[in-house]
């Protein structure tokens, strides 16, 4: 596998060159200047790699918060009436530069949901397949990063086409896939790194992984029965503080639920797909008026059971979480998934006592 050395002086010229064949997406501050997010860069704009730890995950690149699924007209005078028209959207080649490894890994996890043998979600899949992911390894993980305990990590290669490692005066680029190869060629970054590159990367990786303090254990969760966990007595304590907003679900790179809704004006309509959150009261409201998760604690329990148990059981491929720590940082009432996971993992249905 090739390792290319990109001298930092070649960074801007390379991206400028790559722009000719790719739409560039990267982290930049928003208009107000405070909150950084992953967006399509303007013609001359460069990604701000120092701001790559965005509040919102980059999932919006592939899965926008509001997306028009199709449009229609019921106007008898319209030749194309009653035909559902998917809006023309450019799924041009896009390069996501500076994405964190755990966020790229999250996409592969979410893909299990949107790209199955039975059904392929065209909106998510078309957008995902158009992207080339040029990730940036995390040399200094922060205190809420627990990616190494959930099959990811600061240098994880899952879901990436290129992994960039910052070594002060250069980026060492591990070219992982053909798509990655194509991008490097388009940017004209072709200088092979010397023999010491691999060791340099390994050293940085070891240091980063050692710096991760936060961990979660989930080895016992797979053996605990769903009902035991579901009926456990700690949920009220875990979920009391929750205010049932959508913050955790919206910042999470592995959350994927959406709501479908039409907006109609006269004889013209559009069907939208909007992010939805299982934390919301109405999430499971039935047309009959019955709501199986009408109680706050039921919804909190659902979120953690989904992420840490149901997904684990269904796919047998780890938790539905990549350890990015965004929910921990953004939750207004400090509900901490690390604590919850460890509480679930250490639960003993046989024992009578439970922590207050």
């Amino acid at each position: 596998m090739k390792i290319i050395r990109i001298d930092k002086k070649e960074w801007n010229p390379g991206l400028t060159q790559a722009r000719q064949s790719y739409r560039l997406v990267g982290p930049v501050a928003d208009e107000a200047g405070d909150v950084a997010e992953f967006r399509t860069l303007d013609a001359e704009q460069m990604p701000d790699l120092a701001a790559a730890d965005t509040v919102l995950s980059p999932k919006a690149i592939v899965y926008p918060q509001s997306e028009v699924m199709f449009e229609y007209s019921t106007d008898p005078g319209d030749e194309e009436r009653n035909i559902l028209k998917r809006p023309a959207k450019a799924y041009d080649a896009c390069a996501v530069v500076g994405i964190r490894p755990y966020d790229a890994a999250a996409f592969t996890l979410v893909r299990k949901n949107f790209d199955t043998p039975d059904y392929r979600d065209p909106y998510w899949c078309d957008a995902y397949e158009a992207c080339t992911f040029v990730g940036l390894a995390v040399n200094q993980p922060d205190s809420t990063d627990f990616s190494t305990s959930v099959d990811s990590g600061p240098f994880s290669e899952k879901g990436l086409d290129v992994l960039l490692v910052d070594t002060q005066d250069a980026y060492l680029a591990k070219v992982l896939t053909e798509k990655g190869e194509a991008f490097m060629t388009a940017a004209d970054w072709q200088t092979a790194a010397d023999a010491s590159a691999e060791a340099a990367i390994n050293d940085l990786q070891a240091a980063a992984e050692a710096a991760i303090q936060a961990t979660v254990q989930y080895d016992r969760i797979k053996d605990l029965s769903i009902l035991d966990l579901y009926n456990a007595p700690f949920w009220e304590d875990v979920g009391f503080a929750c205010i049932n907003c959508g913050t955790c679900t919206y910042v999470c790179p592995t959350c994927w639920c959406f709501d479908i809704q039409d907006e109609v004006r006269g004889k013209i309509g559009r069907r939208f797909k909007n992010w939805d959150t299982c934390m919301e009261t109405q999430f499971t409201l039935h047309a009959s008026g019955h709501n199986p998760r009408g109680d706050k604690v039921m919804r909190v329990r659902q979120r953690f059971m989904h992420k840490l148990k149901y997904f684990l059981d269904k796919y047998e491929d780890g938790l539905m979480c990549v350890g990015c720590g965004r929910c921990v940082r953004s939750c207004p009432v400090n509900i901490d998934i690390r604590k919850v996971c460890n509480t679930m993992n250490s639960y003993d249905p046989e024992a009578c006592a439970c922590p207050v």
Partner: protein
Amino acid sequence: MSSYIESIRSIAEKWLADGDVELVIGFRAGSMPLMNEPCLVRTPAGTAQLVWDSNCGINLANYITGRKEKIGIVAKGCDSRNIVNHIVENKISREQLKIIGVPCQGMIDRRKITAMVPGEILEVREEDTAVIVKGADFEETLAKADVLQQNCAVCIHRNPVIYDELAGELVAEQDGIDRYADVKAIEALAEEERWDYFEKLLAPCIRCYACRNACPLCYCPTCFVDESKPQWVGKSQDPIDVRTFHFLRAYHCAGRCTDCGACERACPVGINMRVFTKKLEKDCYDAFGWEAGLDPDVRPPLDTYRPGDPDAFIK
């Protein structure tokens, strides 16, 4: 501040042990610096986890609506005013509550502090009027007055207005404060500029509704944004729908908002949505001389008719 903690714990313990309350709502230590987690304590032994410091900005009055038990609750100035509001609005009865009043000297703003230091914050300590912030390779001492939450900086009701026992001595109220300096600054802008100001303010909004859900006033079983028959507000990211959510929510808080700041504190993207409610608070004050949540026996102006009510705008 540590004396507050002792008082809160011992009062809560006593009430639970004597059966005066079935549960106590307070804060326990968070898993991250500058954060605390609201918690429910049901046993006297459990009161050992209760804490109090300048990171208790979330409004605990948010957690009592609809509960039927006898509840003990820790309440600072603004929280207590929201409790009065709940009583006035029949969401809870005074008899159900036993309130530990906490005279407050202001809560600190996590976002502000984060922006003032050069790296990730790993530890925070408070000492009198200083906030000492430590990271992997820095340690800074900040003046608490410089890092207060915006609403705390202009607060004129720091002492609880309703309580059964106090956790500490009453504090002096701030005076000479212009509560509406920020609103006036916006009022002074031209119309086009005002439109743009609010456009920019709301651009990062992700409709997570953390502001609404953190607000003790927002207790409607079905919020107007969730109604679908008819659908008042769209659910997409259309900027007009986002703006409508915010200003219409502010309208629903008119004459009721106590400026507790929980909305701003909860927002994951740092929107200062108090500019909406502050304007309405100012209007209520100017038009009716009204401040929300001070007296459980007085009906608010927006649900009483007085012949002298201003009506020059009605033709």
